[in-house]
C-alpha cells in the first residue's frame, strides 16, 4: 500500500426525490488499500457503491479516479469493477466463458482469453476442469471465486464488493474472508468492500469507514474504530460496549450515571468544566470484584448477575446495575465468574482502558 490516492470523492451528494441518500461525502481511497464501508441497511452504502461504478449518477459532487473525473462516465467505460451481492454470474455461459467475458468485450483473442481464464482459475484455487462447467453446477463458494475471477479478468483499477459473502454460511464466509484478504495481498489491487457486518470488516480491511444515514461517521483503521470510536453510534456498532453518560461540574469533579469513581478520575478524564460526554469501556476490560481477582478499579458499578453466555473461547455476562443499566462483561475461559444468577456482584475497570466520547 502506498500513500497515493487512487479514488477521491468530494461533496458527493445523492438525492432520490425528497430523500437525501448521501450528504456531501468526502473520502480518499489509497492505492492498494483494503477499505471497508460499513453501515446498517439504509445508511447509503449501496447507493455510494452504485455511484462509484457508474450504475447511478450523483446529484452533486465529483469522483476522481487516478486524477481523472469519472462521475459522468458511463459504467461500461469506467475502469472499475464490482462483485455483486448476487454475484450476477451469467447463467447461460460456462465458468470459462463467464471469466473470459470482459476479455471478449475488450477484443482479446481466443487463445489468450483461454490462457488468462486458466491462470485465474489457478489464482482462485479452482480446478482447471471447471472451465467447461456450467455455473449452476457450482457450489456457493465456487461461484464466489468465479465472480472474483471474472472481476479480476477485467483488470480494474479498483475492485468494489457489494456484500458478496452475506448469503453464505458462517464457515464458508470465514474461509472466503481469509482468501479474499490473501488475494488482496497477492494482487496488490485496491479493494473497496461494502458490508453491514463489522466482524467481516475487522477481519479483512486496512481501514474502515462507518456510514450512518448518508454520512461518514468515522473513517479510520479498525483498531482505532474499536478502541477510540468517535460517537456512541460507532461504539455500539462495533460489538458489545458499556456506555456511561458523564458530566464535568464547575469544580473539576465528574458526575457519572450508574457508577462510582475514585476522586482522581475527574482531572484525568480530560473533560472541560460543564461539558458532557460518554465514557466507553469494552466488556473484555471489565472484571468482577471479589473472589480470586478481587482488586477494585478507578470505576466501579454494583448490580445483579442476570445472564451468562458461553462464547466458546470466552464467557459473556450480563449484569443489571443498581440504576437499571444493562452492563456486559467478558472473561476468558480461565477467568470465568462462578456464581448463581441473581447474586449481587461488583464490577470494576480502570480509566486507561476507557475512551471518552466528547459531546454526547
Amino acid at each position, binding site marked *: 500500500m502506498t500513500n497515493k490516492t487512487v479514488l477521491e470523492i468530494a461533496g458527493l451528494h445523492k438525492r432520490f426525490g425528497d430523500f437525501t441518500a448521501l450528504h456531501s461525502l468526502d473520502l480518499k481511497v489509497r492505492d492498494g488499500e483494503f477499505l471497508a464501508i460499513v453501515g446498517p441497511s439504509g445508511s447509503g452504502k449501496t447507493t455510494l457503491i452504485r455511484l462509484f*461504478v457508474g450504475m447511478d449518477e450523483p446529484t452533486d459532487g465529483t469522483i476522481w479516479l487516478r486524477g481523472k473525473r469519472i462521475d459522468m462516465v458511463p459504467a461500461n467505460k469506467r475502469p472499475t*469493477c464490482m462483485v*455483486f451481492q448476487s454475484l450476477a*454470474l*451469467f447463467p447461460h455461459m460456462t465458468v470459462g466463458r463467464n471469466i473470459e467475458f470482459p476479455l471478449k468485450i475488450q477484443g482479446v483473442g481466443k487463445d489468450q482469453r483461454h490462457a488468462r481464464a486458466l491462470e485465474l482459475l489457478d489464482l482462485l484455487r479452482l480446478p482447471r476442469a471447471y472451465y467447461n462447467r456450467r455455473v449452476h453446477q457450482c457450489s456457493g463458494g465456487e461461484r464466489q471465486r468465479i465472480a472474483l475471477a471474472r472481476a479480476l479478468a477485467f483488470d480494474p483499477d479498483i475492485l468494489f464488493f457489494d456484500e458478496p459473502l452475506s448469503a453464505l454460511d458462517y464457515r464458508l464466509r470465514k474461509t472466503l474472508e481469509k482468501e479474499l484478504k490473501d488475494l488482496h495481498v497477492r494482487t496488490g489491487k485496491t479493494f473497496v468492500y461494502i458490508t453491514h457486518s463489522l466482524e467481516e470488516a475487522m477481519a479483512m480491511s486496512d481501514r474502515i469507514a462507518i456510514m450512518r444515514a448518508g454520512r461518514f461517521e468515522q473513517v479510520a483503521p479498525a483498531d482505532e474504530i474499536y478502541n477510540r470510536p468517535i460517537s456512541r453510534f460507532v461504539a455500539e456498532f462495533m460489538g458489545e460496549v458499556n456506555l456511561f453518560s458523564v458530566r464535568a461540574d464547575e469544580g473539576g469533579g465528574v458526575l457519572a450515571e450508574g457508577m462510582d469513581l475514585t476522586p482522581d478520575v475527574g482531572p484525568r478524564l480530560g473533560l472541560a468544566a460543564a461539558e458532557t460526554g460518554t465514557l466507553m469501556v469494552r466488556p473484555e476490560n471489565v472484571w468482577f470484584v471479589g473472589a480470586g481477582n478481587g482488586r477494585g478499579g478507578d470505576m466501579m458499578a454494583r448490580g445483579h448477575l442476570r445472564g451468562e453466555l458461553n462464547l466458546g473461547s470466552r464467557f459473556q455476562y450480563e449484569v443489571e446495575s443498581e440504576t437499571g443499566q444493562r452492563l456486559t462483561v467478558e472473561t476468558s475461559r480461565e477467568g470465568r465468574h462462578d456464581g448463581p444468577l441473581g447474586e449481587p456482584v461488583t464490577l470494576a475497570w480502570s480509566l486507561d482502558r476507557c475512551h471518552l466520547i466528547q459531546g454526547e
Partner: protein
Amino acid sequence: MDRLNSRLGALAATPMLVLLGLTFLVPMLVVAAFSVMPPKVFDLWHWPDVSAYGEILRQGYWKSLAWSLGMALASTAILFVICWPLAYAMAKVYRRFTLVLTIGVVMTLFVSENIRLFGWVLTLMKGGLIEGYVRHWTGIGFDGLLYNVPVIIFGLVYVYLPFMLFPLAQGIAMVPDDARQAAADLGATRKRILWEIDLPLAAPGIVVGCLLTFVLAAGAIAESKLLGGQAVIVIADEVETAFTYGQNWPLGSALAMVLIAIVGAIAVVGVTRVDLDALMGRRR
C-alpha cells in the same frame, strides 16, 4: 410417497389426455387416413394410394405453400422487431403501465378476427377511410391499399401481435437485471449486452413467441382472403377449396398433412432447443 405422487399426476392428467385424444389426435388421424385415399372419395374403405400427394406436386400447390410460409416468416420477423422494444418496456421499464397495455392488447382479442379485418378493409379500400379523405382533401384519388402481399403481411402482423408480445415480455422478464448491470460494469456496450445477455437469456420467450406467430400465420386464411383478395392464394385457402368447392377430400387432407409436417418439424426443432420449464417459472 413419490410413487403415490406420480400416480396422482397421471390420474390428474387423464381428463385432459382424453379430451386431447378425442379432439386433436383422432381428427388428425382421420385427416392422415384420408390423405392416402384415391381421389374424390368420401369414406375410408379403399386401398391406400398416394395419388393426392402426387397431385400436389403436379398442380403447383407448392406455390401456395411457399406464399404461406414466406408471409408467415416475414410477419414473424417484423413482429419480433416491433415487439422487442415494447415487450422490453413492459417487462423492465414501466411496470405499472404494463397492466394497461396488457388489457389494451387483450381487448382486441374480444372482437372476432374477421370483424377486425373488415374494419381494416373499410379503412384501406378505395373510397374507404384513408383513400376517401385523401381524395376529399387533395382531389387526387388512388386505387386503395388492399389486394396486395404487403397488406396481407400487415394483417398477419396486426392479428398475431399478442402472440409475439406476451411470450417475449415473459422471456425478457427472465433476464436478471444484475446480469445486465454486471455486463455493463465489465465494459459491454448496449449492443453487446443485447447480443450477449438479453437475447440468449430471453431465448425461451423468443422461441415460443416466434413459433406461435409463425405456426398461426402459416395456417392463416382470413388475412389473405379479406385484405389480399385474390392477390395470392395461401395454403389454408387451397385446403378449404379442396374440401368444399373441389369436393376432393383426399387432396385437401394431403395438403393439410404437408403443412402439418412442415410446421410440426419447425416447432419440434424450436421447442427442443430451449428450456421451456424456465419460462413456466421453474428455476434452472
